């Protein structure tokens, strides 16, 4: 399509303006993170990377980041294995009730954590399980399994049936076919699922807030919310803490952005 140079220029202007609107709130916080935290600091210089170290130690982020990492690893490892298995059954096998069961899993993608958090908290409390890593992780595993099953089923259904047929003729069991052919072949789909579930788990707020009332398993985003309550004056340290909390997912995003964007768009468009 031919367009005039003026229109082309206008388009660049729109691209730049829109990008600016999106970036500026984020830039604000990054700039604030390097600003002097106090009047004394201001006299020492304009740029203060040591804010990150101060925020890290004062906010005890080493502990909370470790909790976040442990919860993420636990949620990911359980979800990925279980979703591969269930997605494999739904995607390649014929069995009674498969439709009903699959829709039952789909339901979970829509259910908000707000609906299940109250009974979960009171029931797990009476079992003495609140304030454990399981109470924080397992509800998130259940949420992610709903998506993971859906996602892996889509992948397995897209596999060329002749590959399955050939492996079967060679005498490979369904278990072997899954782990030595289909899983290695499905690395792109798996990567997308892993980055999305990691992002959701890392950023999750309500479940760790409620399920760990004493804060033993406080994750990094929660610690940031708490840090904000304590440091109403020092915006520099708060901003530095905010950058630290966002950083792991943002770094991953810059390396694997295609997986993030495709996953979030295609997860909804396919079917």
């Amino acid at each position, binding site marked *: 399509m031919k367009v005039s140079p003026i229109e082309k220029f206008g388009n660049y202007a*729109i691209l730049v303006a*829109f990008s600016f609107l*999106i*970036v500026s709130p984020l830039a604000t916080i990054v700039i604030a993170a390097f600003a002097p935290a106090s009047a004394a600091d201001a006299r020492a210089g304009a740029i203060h990377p040591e804010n990150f170290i101060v925020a890290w130690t004062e906010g005890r982020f080493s502990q909370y980041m470790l909790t976040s990492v442990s919860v993420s690893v636990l949620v990911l490892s359980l979800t990925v294995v279980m979703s591969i298995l269930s997605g*494999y059954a739904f995607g390649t096998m014929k069995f009674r009730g498969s439709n009903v069961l699959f829709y039952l899993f789909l339901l979970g993608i829509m259910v908000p954590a707000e609906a*299940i958090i109250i009974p979960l908290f009171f029931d797990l409390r009476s079992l003495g399980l609140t304030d454990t890593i399981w109470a924080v992780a397992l509800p998130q595993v*259940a949420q992610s399994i*709903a*998506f993971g099953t859906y996602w892996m089923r889509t992948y397995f259904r897209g596999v060329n049936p002749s590959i399955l047929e050939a492996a079967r003729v060679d005498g490979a069991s369904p278990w072997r076919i899954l782990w030595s052919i289909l899983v290695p072949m499905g690395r792109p789909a798996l990567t997308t699922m892993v980055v999305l579930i990691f992002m959701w788990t890392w950023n999750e707020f309500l479940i760790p807030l409620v399920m760990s009332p004493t804060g033993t398993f406080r994750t990094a985003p929660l610690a940031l919310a708490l840090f904000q309550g304590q440091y109403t004056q020092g915006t520099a340290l708060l901003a530095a803490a905010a950058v630290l*909390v966002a950083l792991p997912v943002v770094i991953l995003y810059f390396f694997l952005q295609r997986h993030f964007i495709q996953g979030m768009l295609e997860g909804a468009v396919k079917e």
Partner: protein
Amino acid sequence: MAISPVASSSLIRKGASDHGRSRRRGGARLTPYLYILPALLVYAAFMLYPLGRAVHLSLFKWDGLSLATFVGFGNYVDIASDERLRAAFGHAFVFVFFYAILPVCIGLVLASILTRARVHGLSIFRTIVFLPQVIAMVVVAVAWRQIYAPDGQLNTALRAIGLDGLTRAWLGDYTFSLPAVGIIGTWVSTGLVTVLLMAGMAKIPGERFESARLDGAGAIREFFSITVPAVRAEITVALTLTIVASLKTFDLIYVTTGGGPGSSTTVPSYEVYRRAFQLGEAGSAAAVGVTLTLMIFVISLIVNSIGDKSSS
């Protein structure tokens, strides 16, 4: 979670596990269930069972400690009669506008302008505008709190252009706190929606525009009669994703305003938390949670059925 599958179509099965192997027939028939079992156990225990329990709990008046009393649908009646709860659900619809409707309108205009001309740098643009989707809402909230602060960037900018009269503590204002929080939602959603719509518009064959232009259609006619109808499916998906996200807004409210001032920015998901863990009204909180879930289901069904009807 941000993903929602749009209604599944016909189910064509490829391959079958009980292929031949008559001698292990009984075992083979069980195989699929064994594969599903681990996922189903965790899912049933931590999703289905609590969901059922929430429905059950919502019929009781219970403070979380003492004996519960059965009140039937009393907690649901409260949602209609309690002023604060009514306000919370009202705000949810305001957020649907800011999170979903406004971004789709902006996204449609932006995407159609950007698809008309081949410009460079679209992939960088995509990377940038998608960023708000991957950043923890708490971080987003901290950033915007600084912008809206009395001595924050927004007021500074207003003073710089001489509009001192408009400056205020945006998040502490009874009138402006709700739209101020809503704008954060618009900021989060618009990039996602635009990228989604641009992907849809890239699939429209160029000849369709050429022939419309030969017929003398202007840019605006072209927009309404070609572009918008062609991306109906993408609009449906965008609306589903963003509406669900808006109804689940909890952390943003928790960090920016705590529902205040007064009840002017409270939303159902925040009321669930407040009622259960601050006021000790677990039954009422469960009723709000169940109602919120039903709202999410009904709205996505409506959006998808409208999308299906208009595309066929």
